[in-house]
Structures are given as C-alpha cells and as structure tokens.
C-alpha cells in the first residue's frame, strides 16, 4: 500500500518555532523549505537549522520532505550536500523544466549517497513544475527517475510565466493540472497540487480541494495548519461511499465464487474498473485510519 499524501505542510526552513511544532498539526507530510521562504542572506542558517532538526528531532511516522533551491541558483548542490546526509524521505526539486533537471539533481544525490555510505537510491525525490515549459514537459519529467514519488504543480511561478494571475476558480491552472495529473498517473507516481494562498477563504479552499481530488490528484500542499483538517475531510471517503464500495466487493466476491468475473448490484453492472475503484477507496480509508491512529 503506498503512502497517503493528502497534505504536505510547508514549513519555512529558517523558523525554529515552526520547525519544532510542524508534526503536531496532523499533515501527512512535512516539507521544510530552503527555497522561496528563506531570504538570500539566511540560506546558510536555514540549511544548518533544517539539517540539525532532521538529525536530532523525531517526527514519528510523518513523511519528511525538504525543498531545496534549484541547481541553477548556485545553492542547490550546497543544499544537497547537507540534506542528503540528513536523510529526509524526499527531496523536492523546485522549478523543474525538463527531465534533464531531475537527472542532474539525481546525479548529485547519487554522488553524495556514495560518498556518505548511504544506500544508493534511498533518497526519494519529487519534482515541482512551475513554468509553461515544465508543464509541456510533464510527461518526460514524470518518467525521468525511479526516485520520483510524485510531481507537483507550483502555481505562483507558473501563472507569472503565463502572464496571468491566480483566480478563485483556478481557470488559469486547468491545463497545467490536467497535464500534471495525467503525466503522473501514466508514470505510476503521485500528482500533488499547489497551495491555496487565501487562508481565510475556507469555502474556496474546500471547493479547490474537491475539484483537484475529482481530477485525480493525490493531495495538496498547505501553507497553514488550518487547511489540513478540511483537506483531509475532502480526501477521506464518506461512509456512504465506503458502504457502496464494500457492497461492490461483496458482490464481486460472490460472482467470483460462482465462476463469473462480472456481477451486478442494484441493477448496475460491476466489472473490473468498478472493482478497482472500490478497492482503492477502501484502501484509502484504511490508510487514513492508520494515519489518524498514529497521530494520537
């Protein structure tokens, strides 16, 4: 069963208070940021802080992600030297425009793993796509490395590249979201959505989360802990859906026992894709239950 990544909480890498408390809010993943939330004069200090936090603090079973600076900034390799050795689960590469960006980053990770005696391939990666070019290359990015656990949309830079702005409906992101979710699913990895910046608009946030779940995204980045509970509610199957899924599984089990691969439930045909969806829903609910128990 793969990991749940409904929510990924952004934590500025130079903020000790937020780093200390990051695990108490119940997000599935915590993402320590060395990139845009850190002033250029504090990049060294944030790197020390995130490295020390990762190696000295315990975050339980939370997935730990670090967003590094991109390699072309001149800071990315220095980030990797520290962060790969601190061994978070995943390194998030920002501003990914092509497969080449992922491959170059992977080459550095592999070199550091060898130098440090870390099993090669242990460090996971995710790539954030934040430009028109990156969106067009989503497929090659998604297939570029076995380390990739997912690809994500970074909307702020993307809309700037498109020379537009973000709207509550997200019409400007439709193409990028469609490309990213399709590329991710084709590659068998996760699709992770961008942040919703207006933390005071819970209704808008829920509407966006509902839409991206429907599109096939596996989760979303959040910038405020207040967004975690509503996001999990959207991504957790309802009791009604679960009852239906259980009924489907029972009906197909009965049909299989009779030697048939097709069943019907309340007059509707149940075939392989319907069963696969029901099974996925039940697995998601089971994983959500496990996460909740671990949080307690």
């Amino acid at each position, binding site marked *: 069963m793969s990991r749940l990544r409904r929510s990924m909480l952004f934590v500025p890498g130079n903020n000790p208070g937020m780093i200390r408390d990051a695990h108490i809010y119940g997000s599935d993943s915590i993402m320590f940021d060395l990139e845009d939330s850190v002033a250029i004069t504090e990049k060294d200090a944030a790197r020390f*802080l995130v490295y020390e936090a990762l190696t000295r603090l315990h975050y339980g079973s939370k997935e730990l992600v670090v967003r590094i600076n991109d390699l072309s900034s001149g800071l990315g390799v220095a980030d990797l030297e520290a962060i790969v050795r601190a061994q978070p689960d995943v390194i998030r590469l920002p501003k990914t425009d092509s497969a080449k960006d992922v491959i170059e980053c992977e080459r550095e990770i592999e070199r550091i793993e060898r130098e440090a005696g870390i099993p090669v391939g242990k460090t996971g990666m995710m790539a954030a796509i934040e430009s028109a070019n990156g969106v067009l290359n989503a497929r090659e990015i998604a297939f570029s490395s076995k380390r990739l656990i997912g690809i994500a949309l970074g909307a702020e830079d993307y809309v700037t590249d498109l020379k537009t702005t973000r709207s509550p409906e997200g019409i400007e992101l439709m193409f990028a979201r469609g490309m990213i979710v399709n590329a991710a699913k084709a590659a068998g990895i996760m699709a992770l959505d961008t942040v919703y910046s207006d933390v005071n608009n819970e209704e808008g946030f829920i509407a966006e989360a509902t839409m991206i779940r429907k599109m096939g995204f596996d989760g979303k980045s959040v910038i405020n802990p207040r967004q975690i509970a509503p996001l999990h509610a959207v991504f957790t199957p309802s009791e009604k859906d679960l009852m239906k899924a259980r009924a489907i599984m029972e009906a197909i089990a009965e049909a299989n026992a009779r030697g048939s691969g097709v069943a019907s439930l309340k007059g509707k045909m149940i075939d392989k894709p319907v069963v696969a969806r029901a099974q996925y829903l039940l697995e998601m609910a089971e994983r959500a239950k496990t996460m909740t128990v671990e949080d307690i």
Partner: protein
Amino acid sequence: MEIKKTGVAGTMESSDIIVRIEPKETEGIELELESAVMQQYGRQIEKVIRETLSELGVTKAYVNATDKGALDCTVAARTQAAAYRAAESTDFVWKFGGVK
C-alpha cells in the same frame, strides 16, 4: 577554524537564539549567555554551544548568546552558522545522520 570577524546568526523570535561570535587573541571560549529559561536550561544551552564550537575546531572566541527558548538543534544550528560566518568559511562538513 579561525574566527576572523564578528559573525551573528539567529533572531529574537520565540524558540530561537541569537549567537554572536567574535575573535579573541588568547586561547579559550568566553561565553556570555542570557536566557528566559536560564535556571532550567542555561547549563544545557552552554553545553551545546561549547560542544558545537569544539566540533568545529574553534578554540579562541568571545561568544554572546541571547536565548528565546531554543531547542538543542536550534542552538547548534545557530552556533554553526555564526561560526562559519565569523570564519568567513563555506567549507561545510556534513556528517551522514548528523551528530547525535
């Protein structure tokens, strides 16, 4: 590591610590610490600062620290950042799994 100039790291925000490291002519670390939790954690904060400087090979320095309730990892990180800045060095040494 030789301390060449004044190096400062950290903020006055809650859970942080400001560490200021200055050059000193003679051997030894002269440490001045101010903390709201001096009674309970003063000794521990001082220990982390001294250990961190020792790992970096800093043997001569004046250190002034103002603590706002920082955890050990923050004390170590701010001390490292201040020391590297004071030594004008970017020759970082990262260990697999950190120093525990």
